[in-house]
């Protein structure tokens, strides 16, 4: 068990900068997910943490010890690889006992300890099996057991679940969580899957372009994204381009792709008339109702002059996505989507006229990729 500190970590491959001055702290016993798209440098960061890559610049601390130049076999970290990397010429037991063997633990003891760890991952019956005969999920468990057997200070997981099918992956996420609670080791888990990060993590670090964009608890990161990148990456949302027209109390009026002007709160953010904005309308924050036949809608569009929190549109597409249905609504030049659970009473059909409304306080507003008035609402 140990905390981890990465200070100004940089890795360059020739002209390519994979990791660019990254700073990150991981608390002792925490399960941190490094989340980001392919090529954002998250795996490289993990490999520098494990000693499999040497940083071009910056430092790695495990606990209070600077380990930047220590080779992997001198570090108390252990990596679970995406390919699992089990030793093909060794039995499951020999694989798991390997690290202890390298530490000079005698055979009887290391086999006993390896059996104990295999029990934790529920692989006791495969002790003598050849790794090549195991299924993906079983290999994954063995790889995890092999890394846990040496009781590392920090366990590094490099997308170990990405080669599993969906059901197994979700099951393993829960088990990984339980194992983390059981062993109380610091885990650093790399993934590109937001759902996996939200399921597993005590804390999520979202990476983009070789640096960390935002670190925080899953809820906090989701509710309060610092940038457009984080907002886009964490989930499906409706992004609408807009342009500032004029200032009002606590916000601005912006012209949008809806062909309507709307009121946008921008607490603490400084924007000038004419500045471009990107507004995120999260589908779960949208309230949608059918335009009544007699036109007697309570939330009548354009009722407050040119500034509104409700707009009328037309349903253009209905996508059935298993347990939920996604509806696309054309409003002006753009379209927004929202979702309903199958079985909800209000069903909309293509060509229905609907009213989409929202609470302005729920909008997330971005200017030049940065969130406006973050923490203000």
């Amino acid at each position: 068990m140990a905390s981890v500190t990465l200070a100004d970590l940089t890795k360059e491959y020739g002209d390519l900068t994979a990791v660019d001055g990254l700073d990150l702290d991981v608390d002792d016993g925490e399960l941190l997910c490094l989340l980001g798209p392919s090529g954002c440098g998250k795996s490289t960061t993990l490999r520098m943490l494990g000693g499999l890559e040497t940083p071009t610049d910056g430092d790695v601390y495990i606990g209070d010890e600077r380990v930047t130049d220590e080779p992997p076999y001198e570090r108390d970290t252990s990596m679970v690889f995406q390919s699992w990397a089990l030793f093909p010429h060794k039995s499951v037991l020999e694989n798991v006992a390997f690290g202890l063997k390298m530490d000079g633990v005698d055979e009887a003891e290391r086999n006993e300890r390896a059996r104990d760890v295999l029990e934790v991952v529920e692989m006791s019956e495969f002790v003598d099996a050849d790794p090549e005969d195991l299924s993906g999920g079983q290999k994954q468990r063995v790889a995890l057991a092999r890394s846990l057997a040496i009781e590392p200070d920090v366990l590094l997981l490099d997308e170990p679940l990405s080669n599993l099918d969906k059901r197994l992956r979700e099951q393993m996420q829960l088990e990984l969580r339980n194992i983390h609670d059981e062993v109380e080791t610091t885990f650093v888990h790399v993934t590109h899957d937001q759902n996996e990060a939200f399921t597993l993590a005590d804390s999520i670090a979202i990476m983009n372009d070789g640096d960390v964009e935002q670190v925080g608890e899953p809820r906090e990161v989701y509710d309060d994204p610092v940038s457009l990148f984080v907002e886009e990456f964490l989930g499906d949302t409706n992004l609408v381009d807009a342009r500032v027209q004029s200032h009002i109390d606590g916000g601005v009026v912006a012209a949008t792709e809806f062909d309507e002007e709307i009121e946008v709160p921008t607490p603490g953010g400084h924007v000038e008339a004419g500045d471009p904005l990107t507004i995120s309308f999260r589908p779960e924050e949208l309230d949608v109702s059918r335009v009544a036949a007699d036109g007697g809608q309570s939330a009548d569009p354009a009722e407050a002059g040119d500034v509104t929190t409700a707009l009328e549109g037309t349903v253009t597409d209905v996508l059935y996505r298993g347990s939920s249905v996604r509806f696309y609504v054309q409003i002006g030049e753009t379209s927004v989507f929202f979702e309903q659970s199958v079985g909800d009473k209000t069903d909309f059909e293509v060509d229905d006229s609907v009213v989409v409304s929202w609470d302005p306080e729920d909008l997330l507003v971005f200017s030049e990729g940065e969130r406006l008035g973050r923490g203000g609402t």
Partner: protein
Amino acid sequence: MGALADESMFAWFGKRIKSKDSTSVFLLAPLAAFELVFFVVPFLILVRMSLNSQPETGFYETGWTLAAYGDILGSNLYQQMILFSFKLGVIATVVAVVLALFYAYAAYRAEGLTKSILLFSIILPLLTTLVVKTYAWRPLLAPNGVLNDFLLSLELIGSRIQFAPSLFGTVVGQVYIVFPYAVLAIYSVLSTLDWDVVEAARDLGASRPRSFFEVVLPEVLPGVAVATVVSFAWSVGAYAAPSQLGTGSQTTFAMEIGNLMLTNFNWPVGAAFAILMLAAMLAASLAVIRLLTGSIGGVQDV
């Protein structure tokens, strides 16, 4: 009509090829015919020849006798030659396979241009004929050759050394011949090695040498077995290297068989010698494979 007949003939042939049970027969037929004409038949002729009597004049006298075999096994000179052949085989194989293992590993780890250069320089010598490249070692290793001049100019040696013709020169020449094949055999297996596995070993506390012996070596053992068999079989039967880079005491049985066949015109003894050595090398090769892979068929697992 003719076109129709042709078509049906092709169709018949096509059906035969497509039907599962006979596919392999048709595919193997050309190879089998080649083997029969150029290997099985000559080998049977060789066996028959070894059973003939030795002549006073001419090549052989027709007969049925094991006298040729007896002469070889009873001859002190021939025993020395066989012993030397196997000694050369073992030395050249050990040197070639150990060097090839390092070379293949370096090529496996190298990237981009370095990798291409390392692999290309292994293929390059294969484009030259064996005699030419063996002969090329003579001006390099001779007492008044390049290597001596170089070492003298550096004052590393006091007087000229005869690197060739000698046992040293013979081994160098023979290693040079088999080295590319050993590298390719090992590299082909090594290239399937998942580097993550080596990183996993280091991550779990294995030092660099330890991870090589614990993880890399077991993985490439089938390749090492093939490299060993190829190097050994070729080196025991060496002809070009000892004849061009060795002295009279570096005479292998292959050279002696050449003498018996082409100079002494004693075909029965030459044939018997060839068959005895073939059997010995077959046994030795199978033993090597067994030793390195644990089973005779193990190499097929590659």
